């Protein structure tokens, strides 16, 4: 990530629980609202946070309350940068079947990664696949 000066940051660890995740998302959305990000950008960031946290809690940590999710979010007027780490075995996002392929269009899973990649400016996973970092730039 580029060197940035952040106006708001939140770094925390929490037990695998979507209720806590949703409170964190609400905090981020409140900050975006206060700094007047557009509806389209807020929706995109909400979607990326939702899908990345579901992946970490439900797929990575298997909803095990003894496993933690490590969350970091930094925000300034032009950029939001998020890092989410789970304590699961990781996965290879390139191995997830493309749910837009004709043969996979009706399968239940695999849309979260696709939505994250499309709604943010940059999304990267570490080699193990248990850490995602993503950024969304604000439209000029």
């Amino acid at each position: 990530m580029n060197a940035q000066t952040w106006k708001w940051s939140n770094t925390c660890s929490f037990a695998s629980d979507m209720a806590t995740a949703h409170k964190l998302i609400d905090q981020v959305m409140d900050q975006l609202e206060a700094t007047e990000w557009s509806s389209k950008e807020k929706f995109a960031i909400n979607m990326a946070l939702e899908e990345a946290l579901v992946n970490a809690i439900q797929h990575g940590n298997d909803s095990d309350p003894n496993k933690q999710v490590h969350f970091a979010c930094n925000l300034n007027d032009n950029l939001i940068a998020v890092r989410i780490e789970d304590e699961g075995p990781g996965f290879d996002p390139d191995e997830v079947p493309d749910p837009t392929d004709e043969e996979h269009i009706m399968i239940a899973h695999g849309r979260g990664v696709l939505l994250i990649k499309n709604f943010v400016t940059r999304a990267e996973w570490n080699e193990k696949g248990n850490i995602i970092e993503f950024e969304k730039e604000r439209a000029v």
Partner: protein
Amino acid sequence: MAQQRIDIKKIADVTIAACRDMKLNDDLVIQEWGDQLLELLGDKSCRKLLINFEKVLFMSSSALRALITLNKKVREVGAVLFLCGIDENIMEAFRITRLDNVFQIKRTEDDGIRSFQ
């Protein structure tokens, strides 16, 4: 006891299910919402189903998954399903996942009702 997640009305032979929740991202909400929609198809008089999303401002991939499950049931019982009132941001999620090609989507409830005729 499950909360009511949809408001149901009937216009001629079209069953209209209007989503009550602004956000479809909580597992329990999605489960109840999906179950209530599936339950509608258990009634043989419900073979033309229109789901109105005009109150919904956010839905996650879990909600999209519930819609896919519903669509399988729709095919199984020989029903017809239309969606309407989808917010432009949510529509983008349908486009990205190409589910806009799977579901028949109309802009308004009136458009949806007319589409069954």
